[in-house]
Every structure is written in structure tokens, then in C-alpha cells.
């Protein structure tokens, strides 16, 4: 939901743009805090009211596949595939349903199928599809191949959805998968490799979906098994003891999911293809030296039993983003622009010192802070946030 003309009520925006005489269009810029993480600073530029339709959720679906420089990694070693199957199956039952994202040449797919699992392969690259389909035929119907990009399910912009971008509704309807209630668990598992270039954005999208119970999470507490870079993995696991890596995503992740690091592999275990299916020479040494982690994210069953629900999760998101924009500041300073409730009173309730800094707060503390404000006695106004300021991510 994109609000037209950033930060301006339409009336005044209008008057500013059509005003007579002495001035015309001023462009509205964004604030910038000094100690924003470098990673967050990348997209920081100014907002141009005229061009707004293009920012925000950005790529309309029709444009997504214009950019062909995307590099994808695939598992090509049968031995690695074996190991992964063992890890995934564990002691669980062998005939479960597994959603494999971008299987590529299908090495892991084959191993999974051989272990007895049912597999749905969501492949976003058309070149691999015939190969996968023939694999399915050989192994007798336990494989379904769909031309679909898992990481771009349910785009937020409401452009036309053309494959490989799909809505989860059509996808699961076609596959005949029924939603399970939150407490029941998940109808399938997901395994895949996070797209290298947009790792962080994809993670944000995943947590948005998780907290709002939309997209795949509408179908239950889906367990994700994802390969991500070691760096990003460390960030997800960070807490005040590793302040340099600690960020809003860490809090979101640790509050929402149980995290297990299942395996760690050097980058060289994978093969990199450009999207045309060509084998890519590994040029970037720093990438080559990086390790990949396989992590398992299982949403907590009791995530929504408190006051944090899909109804108000966006306030929680907003709170975290604001706090981590100026992470070395005192929490009390942030509270002033978050809630009109007396900040010291809140701190007392969550049993924190008034000098506590943002990076000293553990994920649980943030959760507790949110719940405290949400439960506070004051009726009229708990948060200064409203939908007008809705966060826009991705």
C-alpha cells in the first residue's frame, strides 16, 4: 500500500506543486541518521514526488526478469546432495513433501526423490525445466515441476503477475495444498538457496510474510531450510554480545523462529550459473572464500499468543527499524518518537535502566517492550505510528 507523495497529505502536496508564482517543486528528501549501518545506507536517496510510482516495491513484475545478470548457485555434487538429504530427513518420516526452490540441474532433487520424499520443484529458469520434467518422468510421478520463482511469490506491487512470478494462492491451489492452522504445523518443508544479490531484501520479505501470516505462512508454520552466506547467518544470530552484527533482522528472526544451523559449506561446493544456464567461472575471490550456511527456520508455535499478532506486527517492525537506525542512542530517546506514553514509566515497567542503549537490548527485551506498551493502561494513544507511515520494504 503505497501512499502517494511521500509524507505529504495530498491536499498540501497539491498546493505545493501547483502553487502560484514564487516557488514550485521542492523535492522531498529523507532524513539520515549518522550511524546507520553501511548496509542500510545503500538505497538511501531522496524521494522525488513525481517519480514515486517507480519507487517502493520497485520492480513491477514485468520488469523483474529484464535484468539478466543475476547469478544463481546450484548444488551439483551428488555427495553433497546425499548429505543434505540425510540432514533434512533426520529421523522424520521419509515421505514428506518438500518444496525445492530453483533446483537447477536437479542433483538434489534426484537424491530427495530417491530417499522417498515427494518433491515440488519451483524453477525460475526455463532452461532447466525440460531436464527436471524428464527427471520426474523417470522417477514415477513423485516430482512436480512448476515454472515459478519462490522468492518472488506474492509481489507487493499489484502489477500483472506473469510466471515465474506467481501468487501463493494460485500456486498452492494448482498443487492442491491445503492450509494448516498455525498450531498444527506445516504441510511442507522448503529447501533452497537465497538469491545472493538480494539476500537481505528476501529475508525482510520472508519475515514480513511470517509476521503477517500471509503468503506461504498462510498455509501453516512452514519450515525453511535455506543456504545463506555465513555473514548474513551471523547477523541473524547476533545479539548484544556481538553488537557489530546486531540489527533489526536479528531481533525479528530470533523472536519469530527457532534457528538451527545445520551445516556449513565452502562456496566452492556449489556451481554458479548465469541465468542462461551457462556455467559461470568463479571470478570473485571474496565470494569464493565465503562459506555458506544451511539454516533451518521454524516459526514458533506460540509466536502470536501474546499481544504481538498479525494485526499489529507492523508497529513492531517500525519500532525495530527506528531503534536500529540510531543504534548507539539511548532507548529512551527513541521512545519519545515512538509512543506518547511516558518513556521513563515504560522503562521502569520493563525493568531497564534509563541509560540503556538500543544495542544493549536482547531480542526478548524488545518483545517485552512492545508488549508492555501495547498493554499499557492509556486508552487514547499508545503508538505515534499509524498507517500513514506504513513501512515499505523491498
Amino acid at each position: 500500500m503505497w501512499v502517494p507523495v511521500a509524507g505529504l497529505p495530498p491536499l498540501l502536496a497539491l498546493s505545493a506543486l501547483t502553487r502560484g508564482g514564487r516557488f514550485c517543486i521542492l523535492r522531498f528528501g529523507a532524513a539520515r541518521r549518522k550511524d546507520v549501518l553501511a548496509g542500510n545506507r545503500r538505497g538511501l536517496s531522496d524521494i522525488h514526488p513525481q517519480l514515486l510510482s517507480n519507487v517502493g516495491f520497485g520492480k513491477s513484475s514485468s520488469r523483474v526478469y529484464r535484468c539478466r545478470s543475476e547469478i544463481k548457485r546450484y548444488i551439483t555434487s551428488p555427495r553433497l546432495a546425499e548429505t543434505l538429504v540425510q540432514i533434512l530427513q533426520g529421523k522424520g518420516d521419509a515421505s514428506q513433501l518438500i518444496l525445492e526452490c530453483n533446483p537447477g540441474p536437479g542433483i538434489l532433487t534426484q537424491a530427495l526423490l530417491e530417499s522417498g520424499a515427494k518433491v515440488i520443484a519451483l524453477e525460475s529458469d526455463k532452461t532447466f525445466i525440460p531436464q527436471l520434467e524428464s527427471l520426474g518422468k523417470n522417477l514415477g510421478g513423485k516430482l512436480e515441476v512448476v515454472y515459478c520463482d519462490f522468492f518472488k511469490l506474492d509481489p507487493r506491487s499489484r502489477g500483472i503477475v506473469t510466471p515465474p512470478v506467481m501468487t501463493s494462492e494460485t500456486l498452492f491451489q494448482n498443487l492442491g495444498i491445503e492450509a494448516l492452522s498455525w498450531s498444527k504445523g506445516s504441510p511442507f518443508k522448503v529447501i533452497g538457496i537465497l538469491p545472493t544479490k538480494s539476500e537481505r531484501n528476501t529475508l525482510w520479505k520472508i519475515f514480513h510474510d511470517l509476521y503477517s501470516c500471509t503468503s506461504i505462512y498462510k498455509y501453516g508454520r512452514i519450515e525453511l531450510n535455506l543456504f545463506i552466506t555465513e555473514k548474513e547467518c551471523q547477523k541473524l544470530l547476533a545479539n548484544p554480545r556481538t553488537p557489530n552484527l546486531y540489527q533489526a533482522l536479528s531481533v525479528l528472526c530470533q523472536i519469530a523462529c527457532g534457528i538451527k544451523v545445520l551445516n556449513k559449506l565452502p562456496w566452492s561446493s556449489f556451481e554458479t550459473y548465469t541465468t542462461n544456464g551457462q556455467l559461470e567461472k568463479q571470478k570473485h575471490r571474496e565470494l569464493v572464500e565465503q562459506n555458506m550456511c544451511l539454516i533451518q527456520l521454524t516459526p514458533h508455535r506460540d509466536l502470536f499468543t501474546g499481544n504481538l499478532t498479525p494485526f499489529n506486527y507492523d508497529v513492531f517492525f517500525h519500532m525495530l527499524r527506528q531503534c536500529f537506525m540510531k543504534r548507539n542512542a539511548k532507548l529512551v530517546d527513541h521512545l519519545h518518537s515512538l509512543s506518547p506514553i511516558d518513556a521513563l514509566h515504560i522503562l521502569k515497567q520493563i525493568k531497564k535502566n534509563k541509560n540503556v542503549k538500543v544495542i544493549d537490548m536482547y531480542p526478548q527485551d524488545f518483545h517485552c517492550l512492545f508488549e508492555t506498551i501495547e498493554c499499557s493502561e492509556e486508552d487514547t494513544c499508545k503508538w505515534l505510528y499509524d498507517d500513514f507511515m506504513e513501512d515499505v520494504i523491498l
Partner: protein
Amino acid sequence: MSALGWGRRAAGLGRALWPAGRPRVLAEEEAFGGVGGHRRSSSASPCEQDRRKDWGHAELLEVLQARVRQLQAEGVSEVTVKRVVVARAPEASSAQSPGKARAGAEGAAPKLSGRWAQKLDKEQRLMQKRKQRLEGRLQKRERTLAWQRQLRVEPRLLSGRLANQLQRWEQGAARSPWEEQLARLLQEAPQRLSGDAAKASAVRGSDVRLEGQRQRLLSFFECCLLTGHLPLAHHVLVTHHSRSRQQRLLTLAMYNMVMRGWAREGSFKELVYVFFMVKDAGLAPDLLSYAAVLQCMGRLDQDASTVRRCLKQMAQDGLQLQGLFTAVPLGEGERAELLRAVRKAEPTFSPPPPPPPTPQLNTSPLLREVYAKQGCPVSYPRLHLPLKKLQDLFQQQLRVELATTVTVQSVEKAQPPTEEVLHARKTLADLRATWETALYQELQETKASEARAAREGRPSLFPYLCLLSEREFVGLLLQTLQALPAQGESLLFLAHELGLRVFNRHIVQRKQLSKQVQVLEQHYIKYLHLLASDTQVAERCLPRQWWEALGMPEAPHEQPWPVSVLVQLGKQLAEVLVQAVQMPGSLAAPRGPGSLIPVLYHVYSFRSFRQIGILKPHPAFTQLLEAAAERTLTFESTEVPMLCPPLPWTSPHSGAFLLSPTKMMRSVEGTQQHQLLLERCPPAQLHGALDALTQLGNCAWRVNGRVLDLVLELFTDKGCPRLGVPAPPSEAPRPPQGRQTPKSGLLPDLSPADKAEMRRELARRLKVAREMQSLRADALCRLSLAQHLRHRVFWLPHNMDFRGRTYPCPPHFNHLGSDLARALLEFAQGRPLGPHGLDWLKIHLVNLTGLKKRESLQARRDFADQLMEDILDSADQPMTGRRWWMEADEPWQALACCMEIARATRAPDPAAYISHFPVHQDGSCNGLQHYAALGRDSVGAASVNLLPSDLPQDVYSGVAAQVEVFRRQDAEQGVHVAQVLEGFISRKVVKQTVMTVVYGVTRYGGRLQIEKRLRELHNFPQEFLWEASHYLVRQVFNSLQEMFSGTRSIQRWLTESARLISHTGSAVEWVTPLGIPVIQPYHRDSKVMIKGGIQSLTFSSSGDTSQKPNTLKQKNGFPPNFIHSLDSSHMMLTALHCYRKGLTFVSVHDCFWTHAADVAVMNQVCREQFVRLHSQPILHDLSRFLVKRFCSDSRVSKSVWASRLLDTLLSVPKTGAFDLEQVKRSTYFFS
């Protein structure tokens, strides 16, 4: 080494050029007994310095060291004295005399010989005198203001030589008067130019930032002068000068400004200090500097010889004495003093007479007839109001503008004042009283802290905060608070708005103080004689000509503050507001503690990785405002139409509102380039634009009361979105309790998925509610203004955008708005319908319904006759009858037209019926009309009605038909998409794309448009959307190519030229056929950041000329902008000729309005002028201009781009064979 040698040679050359018998009256030679003969001891020119190096380097060092010691000894008294004087800047006392500071705990003074020693001796003898002088100075200073005492006066010079000179002069001041020293100083050659050049190239990278800082600094000095803080300005100048890093920020303009300030006060000593700094900075004084010096001499009544010396030096610097009086803008008094000084030296001198106001004539061939004295008869229209009435209206408008704001009764339905309402109003009133005091205090504290910052040498906001009284600032802030929307306002926007308001108020106040208001009043009354209905003037002429003949002295126009200053000031004020305004916590939570809580909160919103600061009122405050239901709206005086005829435009910055500054050309905020271009234009060249704007603004309007009644009835009731009347918030799908009480969202028995669904529903509702609310607020503004202006006559002053398209200045209520807004307006001046007026009314009505677009005029009129019953019914019972009007394309205008027709037909003699109703004539796809005429495309011209024809042609249908032809061919050849598309190609599918092609839509954008249309077709197989839209957009472009071959090649030529021009590093510029210079303000974004305070603000501007042009925008923008500059030229020509014929004429770009009786005349003028315009060799003129502008520069022409550019520019596209004269006979060209 070579540099040194060169220096010597050059110096030698310089000496050789000096007149032989040049008198050398040298201050220190007198003071020190003339030791050293003609060789000046402290050197004035580089050559002598060099020579000294040769012969006396060692000795010099020795002497200097000794002098240091000596000064240290004597300095005890001085330094202590100075500590008192410069208490706040202790470093300054040491900085003042660098010689002193460079300490030497060296041995005792060795025995010295030569003239240096003698000089030292001499100085020791002067010690006593100096002490006395210092003590005297101290006493004098103590009498000055307390804080001024801490300001620095003496500069610290970076050049040691100059510093010595200065010091000695200071010491010798008792005997040698300051002005002599100045004369000496004048002879100093600027010496650091080369060094500066090197530095300049080094800092090239940070040019933009530097330029921004300079602007801010200059603006600071100017503001200091305005508010009488000259010593402060001087202090900041000195502080900056003494730090080499900051010195590069200083420009000659700043030194000149401070000097001029001192000259006005007649403070010669400070002036000389500044002059020292000018020299020290290596700048060459210009006319302004000399004007200041001479003016000061005039004030102090200096003797002739000094003045003469000064004049002489001026001549040597290559500056003309006459120039002082012609090229320097001077006030009356300044001029007199300057003349007095000059007369001392040259008693016979008389300043050149001011250039006679020669009525310069515009020479454009297009305008020859407009300005012809003879030939066709002139019958300029007059207003229908008598002089007395107009004078009265002027007084009303003047009062409004002096008050700077207008309070208007809201048209929202009045609530009966219940207990609750009264209580809320009382609470609010009490709170406001407290806030006033709090704001007052906070402002004073801010002012004090800014003053401290200035005293530390920073160009702070202090002088700006002195521009208005605290009371006015408080009023402004409270007004801002009142108008803050419930969901908050971006801090940047708020800050900019506040800054602008302060600027406007300041300008109005200055005009008031400088007695300009009285002068304006006298002239305006005389001006009204031209317009009033009951006056006679000797010669009929245009309003601008009349105004110029009245000889109103042109007020020096105020340079607007740089955007960064505006925003900085605004942010400071916003911070004051946030800090000061508080309310009891009990308002928010009745049970809560009794402490005070802030009313405004600074919160953030995130847009992806961008963060936007927002000021948001506490919900309790919003509730209080709602509860109090105060029924007033406050507008700035410039947001409201004028109550008297606007001032005629006489220059790019004077016209329109009486006092509030208005620019003739608006552009992206912060851009100066177009203003510079306009100012550089010979005045006569702009006459066409000035007169056209004046004429559009001179149209008197009134509110259509009956329509307003009906609209208000709907508005205060339930609204009617279908008719463009927004519904009240009560109609909005309001979420039961909103986010603030998400109890419903917390129900434990709901599953997370249900809650997610609830959230989505809530968000949907909130969005709808918010949109409704903003529409409602917009309509409330417009209708309240309409209600306010009911029963009045008002005017809409006009200005134009950077391409020459005209717009009314008041934003909320004007004829450019929606159907509803247009229906509320009619001409204040009536005209009898005449024999054909009624027919035109009927045709206009049918046009408004949009029903008979493809029928002839005759058929449209007959259609109206058939419907007469419905029309009369609509007019009589608009809300209760058959409501035929509601089905029209433009319902409200149709209704107004129905009413007018009803009145006219029922009048005893319809031809004599006085009609106020504006009738429109629309160009059919005006952009393509201009392209077709430019390219002389026969097929295209026919399809956009440039050719006479019995029925109106429709270009969209034409294109659709052509696309269908292509499709059929492809389908036969087995192209699958073409087969799928069978039966789907219609006018509607292609319309938007064809329309926007003129405005530069690309294939990409065109495909999206077509995709949207196809999606709306229910039976279209959606899986082919992408393919089909892709195919169609290609065919549309091909069809256009087929029909408008000339057009496409012109478009390509323009685009390619713009691309190449942009690559050579310039922004595209051209001159419209009427002579308006146009420059495209598209540059790469430059960012300006304002740090500090509650939030750092960053804004980017694309108008920064120091940045490289943005090639993409330059190239995509050129074709549409060029066409717009043509259509605006056509409109202006039509306007001017209509005015000459006595018609009332206004326009909405390509839609021309006039009285029903005059439609035929206007149509004729419109066609004639179109033909005239396009008979000019427009493209060849453009090509010539571009070649001259961009290819003549020898420096640039070496590049590859330049030669390609020249080739492109010279190959002007060929045109077709269309005969332009046919347009004159085309009925449906504008219809």
C-alpha cells in the same frame, strides 16, 4: 625558478608602464622621515619585494625579530587593553598582529644599523602616543552595546606584508588620516590571483558545497545589513578572513556588501579594514567597491586630493567613472553622497543622465500587429467597474496583503454549540494563550543562542530571526500548528513552507517601511484610469505601456534566499514549535498524571531504506481541535484571488500581487538559470509574454452563485463522489475503533490468519478514509474560498512555467481546476449574446456532454434543440427533476450552461440577454496539431482537423483504423497475436497512447497504457496481455509514423539534438517564437544537507547549473517542452490579438474561453495566429539559434560531440506539402 624570473620581468614591465612623474605620497615616508628615498620600505608591488630579497633579506629578518621583542615588551599594555576589549575572542588579540604572535624568546636585540633600525627607533618614540590612543579607543568602545564590544573589528591578514602595513598605519593613524592609507592601499596590486587559481582547481570536487556555503554566507551578510547588525557582519567577515580554510568562501561581493554598509554609516576606518582584507584576499576591487569608498568619502567630506587619488586608481584599474552611476544600483542618498565626493575632485562632473525611458519596441514579426500604432483599429476592453469602485477594491486588496493572511469562514455545516464544544473551545483558547508565552520565550532563547553562534564567527540564523518581531513569529507558528494535519507533515516540507512565509512577510514589511506602499497607491490609482469604465485616457494603450508611462520607480527586487537558508530557518522555527508547545497530560488520558506532555512529536517513517522525519500532533490535540469545531480557515494572501486588477507585468519579477513578490516564470525550486536568462533579455523582447500574462490576469471573475448553492447543499449533506463533491468523513468506511484500540485484533479466539485478514481490511478502510479526507479538505478549501468571494469581483493573476505555459497563481480556486471548480466561475463582465451567441451556448452544452463528438456544429445545435425540454428541466429543477445534466461528461459545467440557456431563451430578446458565461473552444489533440503544422503532414493534418472538412475528424479513430489495417495484414500472414487481437482494436485502446506520444511517451510507457486498456476488456484472453500490448504499441507507433511522417522525424531530430547538446555539457536552451528564453532545468541531482537540530535534512535539486545536465531528461524532455513552448506562443498571440479587438479571453492551455457573443471572432483570431505562427521558419530559426549557442564556442567545438552536433543541427527535417492557409477555413480546428 622560471616563475620567479617571469614575475620580475612582469613587474618590470608594470613599472615601465607606470607614468613617469607619478606622485608618491607615501604615508610612512612622511611618518618615518622619508628614509629610504624612493624605494618604499614596506613595498607595494611584488617586484620590490623580490628585490628586497636580494639585498636585505638577512637584515629584514633581524629587524623583524627585534621588532617582535620590542612589541612584546610594549605589548603588555596593549594586550591587556585588548583583553578587555575582545573578551570573547582571546585568540583574536594575538591574531591581530601576527608579527607579535610569532614569538621569539630570542636573545637581546643586537645592534642594528641601516634604515630598519632607524625605523624601529622611531616607533619606540611613537609608543606613548599609541598607548594614549588605545586608552581613548577603549573608553569610546565601552559606550557601545554590550555584546558588540566582543566583536572583532581589526582583521588578521594572511599576507604578512600587508599586515605590517596595516599595523603601521594603525599606529600612525594619529597623524596620517585613514583615507590616505586607503589611497595607498588602492595601489596595491592583487597578488594572490595565481595562487587562488591553483586552489580553485584543487577544490573543484566540492564545488557544489562551496557554492552553497557562499550563497548562505552572502545571504547572511545581506540580512545583517538589513537588520542593522553591520558590526556583526563585519565580525563574521573578519573571522572568516582570518582562517585560511574559510577565507576561500569569501567573495568580492561579500566584502563589497560590508563595505557598502560601512559607507552608509560613514565609518571610514572599518571600511579601510575591509579594503585591506580585499587586497589581502587577492581580489581586485570593482565598481561596487569604489562606489562604497567614494560614498564614504562623500559622507565624511574628505578633501579633494584623496578623492582624486582614488579616482585615478580607479581609472588605472580600467573602471569608468560613469560606470559608478550607471552600472551600480544605488539608493537616492547614496547616489548624492557619491556625487558629492566625485564633484570634489572634478567639480564639473555631472552624472550621465539616466537612460531615457525610450519606449522600446518589440521587433518580433509575429507581434508587429499587436504593437502597431496604425493599421487595424484598436479597441482594448475596459472593465465594467467605475473608478471609485476600483479604488475601493484596491484598498481592500492592500489591506489583505499587508495582513499577509486571510481568514475565511469554512462552509462546513455549523454545529450547534453544545456544552462540549464550548468547553473544547475554551480549553483551546487557554492553551493558545500559554503557548504564546512559551513560544515567545523559546524564540528569545533561540535568538540568543544564534547570536552567540554568530559571535563565534558562524553565519547563523540570528539576523533572520531579527527580521520579524517575536509576535509575528509566534503568530506564524501558531497558524502552522493549527493547520497541521492529523497524520503529520514531513519536516522538510514544513520547514520550507515556514521559511518561505517568513521571507514573504519580510518583503511585505520592507515595502511598508520603505514607503513604497504610498508610491504604489498613487501610481495604481492613475493606472486605474486606463481600466475603469468611467474615465478617459488620451491614448489607448496596453496596461503595461500605461504603467511604464506612469514612471513608477522600479523597486530593487529582492533576491530570494537560497533554499538551504529557507529550510534552515524553517527547521529552526519548527524546532521552537516542538520545544515550546505543550499541553497537560490530562487531556490525553483523563486519569493520567497532571504533567505536561508535548503536543508535537517528531517521528519517522520508512520508505524502503529512506527515512522521513515527520512532525505529528498528539492525537489528543487533534481530537480537541475536532471537538472545538472552529469554523475558520487561514490562507496566505497569495493563495487567494486578488480583489483588484493585478499589477501589470513590467519585468520578470514585478507584477501580479501588489506587495507579495511573484516571479513571472516559475521553475524547479532553487533554480536561477531561467531568471538570469530573463534578466539578460532586452526588455522589449519579453513584451509579448508580459502583455499576454497581464491580459490573462486582467480578466475579472465572479462566482456562479446558483451552482455554488447546489454544490454546498450536496457538500454539507452527504456529498456525491460521482459528481465530484467529496463525501464528509462520516460517510467513510470507518474502522470500528482504529488502530489505537486494537482490542478487536487481540481477541484470543481468532487465528493468526484471521487477524491478518482483519488487518488487511482495516488497512483498506483506512486508505479509503484517508483519500476521502484529503479530497474533502481540498474541496473545503475551494468551496470556502468560493463562498468567501461570492458577491465579489476578483482577479486571478497569472504567471508561467519555464516553457511559457500560463497558470493562475492562486492555487485552490481557479479556472484550471476540475469540472466543479470551472463551473463555479463566470466572467464578472457581461456581454449581450448577439445574433449567434445562443447557438454557441447550445453547441458548448453539447460539447460538455461529450455526446456528439463526431457530428457537425449544425447537428450539435439541433441536438440541443431536441433536448430543450431536458435542458430547461435541468435548469429549473437540478436536483429534483429528470437530472439530465448529471449524465454529462462535465456535469457541473453542463448544468451551469443549461441555466444560462434557460435564462437566455426566456429573456424577451435573447440577442440582448447579457451573458456572463464563458464558452470554450478546444484544440483537438493540440500537440499533434502543432507537429502536423511543423512537418506539413497532409494526412496527419487532416486527421487533427487542420484541413477543412464537413465533420470533425478524430485522430484516435484514425490511428485505430490504421492499426487495424496492419493487424489484418499480419493476421493473414499468420502472426498469432494479430489473430488473437481480432475485434479488440478500438479508439479507446489507442487513445491514451496517441495523446501522450506528443508528450514523449516511450514504447515502454505506451505498452503499459495499452496493457491497462486491454485488461479492462473482459473478454480479452488475459494470458496474451503482454504479447498483445507489446505488439499493439509497435503498431500504434508504426501507424503514427505512417500518418505523421514529418512529426516523427521532427521528434527524432529534436531528441538527437538534445542528446548531443547535453553531451557537450550544456542544458538545452531555445527561444520561443515570441521571444521567451527557455532553458531545461534538468541536471544531475545535487544534494544539500542541513545538519544539526532534531534531524538532518537532505534535499536534492535537479536545477543546479553547476552539475552536468541529465542527458536522459534533457533528451526526453526536449520534444514535448518545445511543443509546449509553441502552443503557449499560439495562445499568447491569440490572447494579445483578442485583447486588441476588445474581447475577454482566458485559456486553459489549449482550451480558449470567451463570451458566447465573441466566439466567432476568437475562432478567427485563433486560426489566423496559428497560421502566422507556423509561417515562421520555426525549425530553421531553432537550428540557427542552437548552432550559434552551442557550436560557436571554440573550446567546445573540438570535441567529437560538437562536430556531430553541428551536423545534426544543420540537417533540419524536410517538411511535407500541406498548405497551411487551409487552417483558416477549418471549422473543427478548435471547436
